């Protein structure tokens, strides 16, 4: 039981990593080279995404599906994102914690994609572990890409490859390595 849980968690974090599916790359496109701010930012985004997933799952299973309006799920997800974004801005303004100040913090693409896990018909425990694993994978890969980016700044690189192109090539190589671990899960 515990092993299968751990296996699912690692499978979601490594094998079906959300960043390796082309989502959430805006977290590493901020030209940030220090790991700590990226870690804080991606962790906060993950917490918001988890909150959105929990509310969304309940709404989907107990409201949208029973009254046959599941086709409105993307609109509900958009409304939830807006609500969470407003809540985050309220918390940032009212508390003394040094949280990242960004008006659009809650509108990250990771929040949309974890909402998608609620769309599938899988049971809550499986969906929750998948989401948790995906978010752990998102945090880990964001940090990894930031570390790579900070090293790339001091290396000579053809001008056309600077920025997104070289990031995508690195991402492809990471995906290639992680795909090799597919047999384990």
């Amino acid at each position, binding site marked *: 039981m515990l092993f299968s849980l751990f296996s699912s968690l690692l499978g979601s974090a490594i094998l079906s990593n959300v960043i*390796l599916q082309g989502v959430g790359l805006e977290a590493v496109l901020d030209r940030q080279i220090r790991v700590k701010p990226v870690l804080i930012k991606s962790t906060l985004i993950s917490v918001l995404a988890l909150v959105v997933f929990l509310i969304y799952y309940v709404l989907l299973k107990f409201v949208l599906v029973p009254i046959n309006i599941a086709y409105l799920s*993307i*609109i509900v*997800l958009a409304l939830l994102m807006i609500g969470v974004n407003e809540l985050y801005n309220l918390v940032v303004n009212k508390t003394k914690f040094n949280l990242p100040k960004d*008006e*659009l913090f809650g509108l990250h693409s990771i929040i949309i994609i974890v909402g998608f896990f609620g769309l599938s018909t899988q049971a809550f425990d499986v969906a929750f572990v998948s989401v948790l694993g995906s978010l752990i994978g998102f945090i880990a890969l964001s940090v990894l890409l930031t570390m790579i980016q900070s090293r790339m700044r001091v290396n000579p690189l053809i001008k056309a*490859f600077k920025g997104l*192109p070289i990031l995508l090539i690195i991402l*492809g190589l990471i995906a*290639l390595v992680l795909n090799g671990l597919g047999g384990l899960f």
Partner: protein
Amino acid sequence: MNKNNLKPYILLSILPLVYLSNTLEIALFMGITFIMLAAIVYGAGLLIDKFSVGRMRLYTYILLVAVVITMTMTILNTYFSLNQFMGIYLALTIFTIPQLKAQTSEIQKPMDYLWVMLISFVALILIGFLREFLGTGSITLAAFGVDTIQVFASRFGIGILKDNSGGFILAGFVFAIIQAIPFVKEEPTDVV
């Protein structure tokens, strides 16, 4: 606006779709849907920009995108058997439009929007074509009435291009080519 400065927006606007575009057919389908939806969002955006500002403007955009995606996916699901991820990935792509608009006040002309959409479409088609052609050695466009055209045996194809890893590597090279091509010739300036 200088067209060379639009390149980052072109690359970012199709980034989520690269993952799904592993064949020319899917790339064409998503490219056409993307252009249609982006045109609707840009058109409606002119009205939104006129009547709302700040965060509310962005929220209006997001709700508009959600409504448009919901309607489009309902219509498309009636006629085609679509990948279940497609709606979400299209939503992600279309969500980037208001965010890009929020980040810059430089893109204001309709021709700039048209330019971004067209180059994004061409880049997506190119990625889909190369992934299918180099990955399998053939091109299939069954939904558009074209049978399989086999150019070389599939055992000589580059298998990883069908996976997400190969897609990202190829997209990296395509994006680098786009970055290398000057859309507008710029006069060299002396910097002292």
